[in-house]
């Protein structure tokens, strides 16, 4: 009998050791030194890459490799705007249909080319070009033309009066040379090799790590943080675990997970207010959810404060309409829903929804039962949906939950309720509320299917939204939006539950971090305490 045991084992051992040696030498995601004192390592739950502004990347101006014509000023409350690539604040004509922007001189892109009007024109035209299939296109459709008046002046010609055009000037500018051939924005090389004027440049990109280095020639002063490493870690728990073990300097986490860090020394939990809302659509086509009495009752039956305290760990604000309190004068403090299940039940009974033997109401043979769809990967949405279903059950309405991916939710969005989020562009009431509430989005093919997902139609709301969009006088706009909110709470089309506070955890250091800023719906580590990373200085 031949003994082959040593042979087999030696072979396997050699192979294993060999593999170890080979892989240590050829590190697949190798970069230069780490643990640099002037660098930060952050972990994000959002995918890396896709860095093309034409595709909609960085539309709120948060991209570190690009600059927009204007940028946000931080602080609590509504953020203001200040010039960035514009030399001074843009001006508009009397009916806000023509906007003129003077551009800054002496700015260069990371590939060496000079920044001028041609680049601005090319960028905006590319966004609007059907050939780009840009996801951002519909939110720029007020722009009918962009013209270079001369090398350092650009004119925006609008299809209709649009007061908040500054919000559309936050997006990053790319060189006109990179847009020479029209093509799909999602396929452009800019996605993995961005060329911008911003304070950082991308030096290395792989699916789970992106490395940025400071742009020493940045027109607003070179950043002090010289290196930024972003890791893609999609699982919340893994990010939290890596934070616990001290491997990363900061990350965004769901509120409950973030709260577990509040006792630890050398870690801080930051919560930024946002206009990022969570709520349920109540499609008009649904016999139960579309019923006016049911809509009102559901808004009264939802225990929003409990959701904030328990699901969000206290990090959130009660919502009634998509307009948050932080909007100041545009916000209507009277337009709220109390938590009043008794009143909800009274409304339902009065409208003919009679409680059955099993506790569920019905009216004319229609059982008070409908389905809520939510995106299965999001634990906050799952818990909000469950909490809401429990509240609805308490007033006799049965809610079935379905955890689906977006493509399965899509075809049913006009039939069944969906747990949605909003607030992509929160820096003006128009961009915040128009797409969500205006009835023009009921028609198929207009905008995205998630615009006005309830197919809600309220003429008073529509009228107010139009006034707000077109007038330039701040007082008129504020009054119009207050009217919108009042009209909405008298006849709601959604159950807007909460505004999230985005929660972040960071390691303490002697860097003076960014102050607060109002955040949009997307909340990776490009926001949080790192949103103006390029301005950080060493404090005491």
């Amino acid at each position, binding site marked *: 009998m031949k003994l082959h045991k040593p042979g087999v084992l030696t072979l396997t051992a050699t192979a294993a050791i060999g593999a170890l040696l080979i892989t240590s030498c050829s590190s697949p995601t190798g970069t230069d030194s780490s643990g640099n004192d002037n660098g930060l390592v952050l972990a994000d739950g959002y995918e890396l890459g896709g860095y093309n502004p034409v595709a909609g990347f960085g539309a709120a101006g948060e991209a570190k490799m690009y600059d927009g014509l204007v940028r946000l000023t931080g602080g609590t409350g509504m953020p203001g705007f200040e010039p960035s690539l514009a030399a001074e604040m843009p001006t508009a004509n009397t009916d806000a249909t023509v906007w003129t922007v003077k551009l800054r001189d002496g700015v260069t892109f990371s590939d060496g080319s000079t920044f001028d009007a041609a680049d601005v024109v090319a960028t905006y035209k590319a966004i609007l070009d059907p050939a780009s299939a840009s996801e951002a296109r519909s939110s720029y459709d007020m722009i009918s033309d962009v013209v270079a008046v001369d090398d350092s002046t650009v004119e925006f010609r609008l299809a209709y009066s649009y007061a908040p055009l500054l919000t559309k000037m936050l997006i990053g500018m790319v060189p006109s040379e990179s847009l020479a051939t029209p093509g799909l924005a999602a396929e452009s090389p800019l996605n993995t090799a961005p060329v911008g004027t911003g304070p950082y440049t991308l030096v290395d990109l792989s699916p789970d790590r992106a490395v940025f280095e400071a742009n020493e020639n940045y027109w607003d002063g070179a950043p002090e943080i010289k290196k930024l490493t972003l890791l893609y870690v999609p699982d919340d728990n893994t990010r939290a675990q890596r934070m616990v073990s001290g491997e990363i300097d900061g990350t965004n986490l769901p509120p409950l997970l973030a709260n577990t860090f509040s006792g630890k020394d050398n870690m801080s939990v930051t919560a930024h207010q946002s206009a990022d809302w969570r709520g349920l659509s109540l499609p008009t086509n649904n016999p139960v959810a579309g019923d006016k009495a049911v809509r009102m009752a559901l808004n009264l039956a939802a225990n929003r404060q409990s959701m904030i305290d328990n699901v969000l760990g206290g990090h959130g604000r009660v919502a009634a309409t998509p307009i948050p309190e932080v909007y100041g004068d545009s916000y209507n403090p009277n337009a709220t829903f109390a938590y009043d299940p008794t009143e909800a039940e009274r409304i339902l009974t009065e409208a003919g929804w009679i409680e059955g033997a099993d506790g569920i109401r019905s009216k004319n043979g229609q059982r008070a039962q409908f389905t809520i769809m939510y995106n*299965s990967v999001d634990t906050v949405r*799952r818990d909000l949906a469950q909490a809401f279903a429990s509240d609805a059950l308490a007033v006799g309405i049965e809610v079935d939950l379905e*955890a689906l991916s977006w493509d399965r939710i899509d075809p049913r969005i006009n039939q069944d309720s969906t747990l949605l989020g909003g607030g992509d562009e929160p820096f003006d009431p128009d961009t915040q509320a128009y797409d969500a509430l205006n009835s023009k989005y009921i028609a198929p093919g207009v905008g995205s299917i998630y615009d006005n997902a309830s197919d809600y139609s309220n003429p008073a709301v529509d009228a107010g939204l139009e006034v707000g969009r077109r007038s330039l006088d701040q007082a008129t706009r504020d009054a119009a939006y207050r009217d919108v909110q009042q009209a909405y709470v008298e006849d709601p089309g959604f159950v807007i539950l909460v505004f999230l506070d985005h929660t972040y955890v960071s390691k303490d250091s002697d860097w003076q971090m960014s102050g607060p800023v109002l955040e949009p719906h997307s909340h990776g580590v490009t926001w949080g305490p790192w949103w103006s990373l390029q301005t950080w200085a060493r404090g005491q």
Partner: protein
Amino acid sequence: MAERRFKIALGVLIFVALYAALVPWLADVDDRVTEFSAARLAPSFDHPFGTDSAGRDLFVRIAAGIRTSLLIALACALLATVIGVAVGTTAGLVGGWVDRFVMRGTDAVNALPHLLLGIVIVAMFRGSIAAIVLSIALTHWTQVARIIRSEILSLRERPYIDAAILAGASRRHVIMRHLVPATAPQALIAVVLLLPHAVWHESTLSFLGFGLPPHKPSLGTLLEEARSSLLLGGWWTLVFPAAVLVIATVAVAVAGSALRSMLTPPRPSELRL
């Protein structure tokens, strides 16, 4: 020896089955009712197994979870056995190139890692219990087919079959009245032995997010929730479902193998495995 093992395992199984059947029924808890302020409480007198992330009592929820998991597993095991019996009987009876072709086919199916096939099938038809059952059944019928086939092959040579044929029984009569029923014990064992695999698979698929939706209790979704609850300090969300999973699957496996030892004399080839 085998009998004693069988009795113990059966006892444990009955206990688990009672837990799964009675507790949800007696507690009559509506699992749509949540109480987030009572989330993630440690085990106490009120909540022997603690509470989960939505404030639901885990003692009841785990019982519901194992019930779901066992029911799905039963469906998978039955379906896999039906397929396996059909295929194995055909191969064993018809013989010839059909037999060889079928055996090659089962070898091929065996070559694919079960979970992979399962993931692919479920990923494509996400969210449907039918997809879960199918994906597990379609990857597990091969063991059954092999066993049934060799059983049929050995049965064919038995004297009583010869006697029946000599007595003038038709082919159909012989097959239906003698051969197929004689495979019943093996089929039963196959169902029992498949159960732990099916539970294992369903919980893995649900854990990866491909199986049941997160708010429906099954052992897999409960363990997936444990992943996040661990960090928030809730060791009980992992320990109790895992313990129930292990007890149930081990009990079934021991019962099944004891049953097999009791019902079949050992064969040389089996001793070596």
